[in-house]
């Protein structure tokens, strides 16, 4: 005689109907932490918005460094969501620290739809944007009183948000780009399209191709700072790029002059 356990036979069953659920005393936060550490090789991730502002602060430091003696720069920045970032750039221009406040989601994916929320504004932008069509929202930065712009583009599978605001004493700059799933980098194609269509296109039309200074990087691949309309570019130290940010983040330190007026609201 052969015996087979019913409970073993049930290994082949999948319940898609009852989902018998009860309270569990297990701490899910610990499980999540454990799992994420395992799959990500225990990398510590900086929040995207924090990284964005690190890049902005770093850009400021390098831009200033080109015309003035190296000096410690510190200050406080805010973005459209009301998040506050404290930054500090040390004398060597490399060591940046930044702390992010409450980071709000401006563009979120909800039931397959892309929802843009800022202040009283709530707009379903799913059908208003794609990789070639940006949605541009103008707002006034509460700190500087200067006009700022949020540019949205992409698709529910991969979307992009760019937030330009004024950086005291430096000029217009700022950048954010995230995708629909993890808030990190979108693919280069989407990012390039959204940024290029809404910004670079008009700039290049007006000013021609941007050429980096000697020792710099091609503007489309790495680091460039536009300060007060004067194009400056500089190399990025390797330790910086590795530790602080991804190459995509360095891709768009842009002057407001690059915004295509025809696209502005």
């Amino acid at each position, binding site marked *: *005689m*052969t*015996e*087979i*356990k*019913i*409970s*073993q*036979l*049930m*290994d*082949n*069953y*999948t*319940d*898609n109907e*009852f*989902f*018998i*659920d*009860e*309270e*569990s*005393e*297990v*701490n*899910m936060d*610990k*499980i*999540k932490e*454990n*799992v*994420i550490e*395992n*799959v*990500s090789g225990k990398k510590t991730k900086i929040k995207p918005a924090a990284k964005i502002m690190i890049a902005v602060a770093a850009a400021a430091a390098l831009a200033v460094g080109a015309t003035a003696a190296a000096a410690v720069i510190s200050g406080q920045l805010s973005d459209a969501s009301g998040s506050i970032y404290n930054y500090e750039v040390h004398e060597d221009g490399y060591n940046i620290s930044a702390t992010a406040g409450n980071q709000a989601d401006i563009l979120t*994916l*909800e*039931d*397959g739809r892309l929802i843009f929320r800022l202040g009283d504004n709530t707009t379903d932008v799913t059908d208003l944007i794609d990789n070639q069509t940006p949605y541009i929202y103008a707002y006034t930065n509460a700190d500087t009183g200067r006009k700022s712009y949020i540019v949205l583009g992409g698709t*529910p*599978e991969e979307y992009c948000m760019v937030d330009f605001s004024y950086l005291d004493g430096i000029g217009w700059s700022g950048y954010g780009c995230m*995708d*629909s*799933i*993890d*808030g*990190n980098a979108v693919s280069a194609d989407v990012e390039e399209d959204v940024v290029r269509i809404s910004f670079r296109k008009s700039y290049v039309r007006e000013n021609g191709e941007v050429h980096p200074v000697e020792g710099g990087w091609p503007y489309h691949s790495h680091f460039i700072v536009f300060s007060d309309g004067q194009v400056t570019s500089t190399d990025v130290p390797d330790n910086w790029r590795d530790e602080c940010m991804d190459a995509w983040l360095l891709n768009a330190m842009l002057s407001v002059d690059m915004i295509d007026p025809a696209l502005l609201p």
Partner: protein
Amino acid sequence: MTDGDIVNGLKKGKTKALEQLIDRYGAYVSSVISRILRGRNEDCRELSADVFLAVWENREKLRAENLKGYLGAAARNKAFNKLRNEREELPLEEDMIIFDEGEQPCEAVERKETALLVNRAVNGLEPITKELFLRHYYYGQSVAEAADALGLSLSAAKTRLCRGRQTLKEILLKEGYDYGEQNCENK
């Protein structure tokens, strides 16, 4: 965010999608495991993490349809396998089908065929018996717990379980297997 969004994110290798998967289904997965392991919290934590690590490893094959059921089955099987490896058993009611000598056991059947067979057999049960059967043999609830959840007396639940076992065996028999006689009197 839909299950489809999460699965797409996983397939792209996004760890944030894995976090969202855990946020959405972690409690369910740990609940399934915890019930079977009967409060062994450390093991429950470890196996719950194993379920999601396995999902990550196999994310290319993942499908958004029935995602919760898939996770539940993975959790349930990991917990039962843990007990089996430790030679422990849940006190399940008549947890055995007996085949006569000379008959091939179901284990010899291709896994996919066995899955179809078992699904057909379980889905052939009348609804309340099916839920009772699954609560007991799939989720590991005691007969008393399952009976209580369904508002049945203990003896009625045992009778229904016995009928469920008979139906399962009948399906297996139709597929060419034999089995021993069983007494369905209440015990």
